[in-house]
């Protein structure tokens, strides 16, 4: 493998990994606040991409208004999902909640398929399809956007969780729901905020990645799974580890594909994330079950 190929695959892995990180942050925020794994998380990525495409195409919005409107719509859907499906079944068992969010995921996917058809679409690039050259590898502007947006979001989230009242209340609910309730945090509102925030993060990821990698009604499941892997690397608690985990996964995928060696052919790209998932879960299983017992 030449240096250029290596750098190129590092760059594309980093870009892809940023998206996994954004999705993973959604998983981490919802899980830490509510104890629920939202299996519909990936569908918000799909919604972001598809909405931005169709808003630009049929409503004639330019890139950034389309971005904002897509995210707002996704947030509304996230809030509705929480209010209708999760809150009404609040006392449900873990098994029921898993099934409910899976139901929500395939419902959203099915409706998207009926509305927008099955063909993959690509929204326009944010700022043209030019690229810059680094060490012989070409980096598209859109990739820079993706990395930049992820970086900005990470910083904003950090500030939000550290310095705002709502952010601190979310953090408190994540640490101990009962205690947070006792000091006057409305934990149900916090759950609503967590779901809405996660929807926004997913949709943002969807909007920025769609111009680069196409999107269609059924991309949600796989992207969601990879976001989950990122989140599992962060132990479903740590934001920074989730981000790093997402990026590591993205890089791992693209480098193994670039190696194109033995069993690691590109056809098995999806399997890499799944193997990482199983390994992480099994390695962390003791810690995870201890935490579960403690809560």
């Amino acid at each position: 493998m030449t240096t250029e190929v290596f750098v190129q695959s590092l760059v594309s892995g980093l870009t892809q990994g940023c998206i996994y990180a954004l999705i993973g942050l959604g998983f981490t925020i919802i899980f830490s606040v509510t104890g629920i794994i939202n299996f519909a998380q990936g569908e918000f990525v799909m919604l972001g991409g598809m909405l931005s495409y169709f808003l630009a195409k049929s409503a004639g919005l330019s890139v950034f208004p389309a971005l904002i409107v897509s995210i707002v719509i996704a947030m509304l859907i996230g809030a509705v999902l929480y209010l209708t499906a999760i809150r009404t079944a609040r006392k449900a068992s873990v098994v029921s909640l898993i099934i409910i969010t899976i139901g929500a995921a395939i419902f959203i996917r099915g409706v998207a398929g009926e509305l927008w058809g099955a063909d993959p679409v690509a929204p326009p690039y944010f700022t043209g399809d030019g690229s810059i050259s680094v060490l012989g590898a070409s980096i598209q502007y859109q990739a820079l956007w993706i990395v930049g947006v992820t970086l900005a979001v990470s910083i904003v989230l950090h500030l939000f969780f550290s310095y705002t009242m709502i952010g601190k209340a979310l953090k408190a609910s994540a640490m101990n729901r009962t205690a947070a309730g006792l000091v006057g945090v409305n934990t149900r509102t916090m759950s609503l905020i967590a779901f809405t925030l996660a929807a926004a993060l997913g949709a943002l990821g969807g909007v920025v990645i769609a111009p680069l990698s196409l999107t269609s009604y059924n991309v949600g499941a796989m992207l969601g799974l990879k976001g989950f892997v990122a989140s599992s690397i962060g132990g479903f608690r740590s934001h920074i580890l989730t981000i790093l985990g997402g990026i590591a996964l993205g890089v791992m995928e693209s480098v193994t594909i670039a190696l194109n060696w033995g069993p690691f052919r590109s056809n098995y790209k999806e399997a890499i994330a799944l193997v990482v998932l199983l390994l992480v879960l099994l390695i962390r299983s003791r810690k995870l079950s201890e935490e579960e017992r403690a809560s």
Partner: protein
Amino acid sequence: MLATLKKYGWSCLAMATFLLLLILLPTQLLGDKTSILILIGIYSMVTVGLCLLMGYTGQVSLGQAAFFGTGAYFSAILSTRYDVNPWLAMLIAAVATGIFAYLIGYPIFRLRGNYLAMATLGLGIIVWILFRELSQYTGGPDGLGGIPNFSIGGFVFDNNLKRYFLVWFFCVCALLIAQNIVRSRTGRALKAIHGSEAAAESVGINITQFKVKIFVLGAVYASLAGSLYAHHLHHIGPSSFDFMASVVVITMAAVGGLASIWGAVFGAATITYISQDALAELGRSQPRLADLDVVLYGLILMLVMIFMPKGLFVTLRDSIDSWRRKRSQKGVVA
């Protein structure tokens, strides 16, 4: 004495009606829909296996279609490429799937709840990717065709009616075995695990072992159903065993009530009828609505789990029971 007689009388009557229906349905009532009735039997087996795991033991598997697939593919590959007798192929498939489930069961059941769900989901997708990519064996995305019929001596199961009785023979056996397990010591242990793992462990139940056992049983059920599926349709492809297929089985289990053997049949029948008959016709007349079943499954899963977490079938049965009890109490008072 009278009460016990009454109790068993009812279940004997129910069983007799069920068996009579099984014979009458394809021959007298729904002869033109035999192929759907066969699929109902096949999916009932998969669903029952999942119900034992999810409903009775409280453990999630989002990858049940993988075992359905290994059964189907083992049968198909052995009988088409290596000329193995279909019965032997089915047996090898079931044993191989069982061993596979056993080997992954121990590590995977160290996980629980959400993590177990994700791990089984991941596993299901990995297996599905293998079906798709190991094309020198599996035929890749096109799948495998020309899978032969079952036969005993000179008797070949070469039409739907014959295969219907074959499939339902296996299905009824599977149901009866499942029912016996539920009522046995193992079944009580499983329910104890569902209730509280700590409590179950403290009275000496080896929880991991029981979970793995029932996981293996469910996998073998799915594998047998997969073999029947392959030898019934004569052609299989990876799309029958993807994540959506696992979701469909979960939908069947949810409709039937996760913890009910007969509910599983009800769920399998309802969902199979909807997807193969009602919606299939709609999809033919209006191709745009061809994927409507996905939307419907999503809605069903959400609504059933929110409003009737015990499942449609069990909720209905319970409400009929309480209505009967109320009526008989009124009778006593009067």
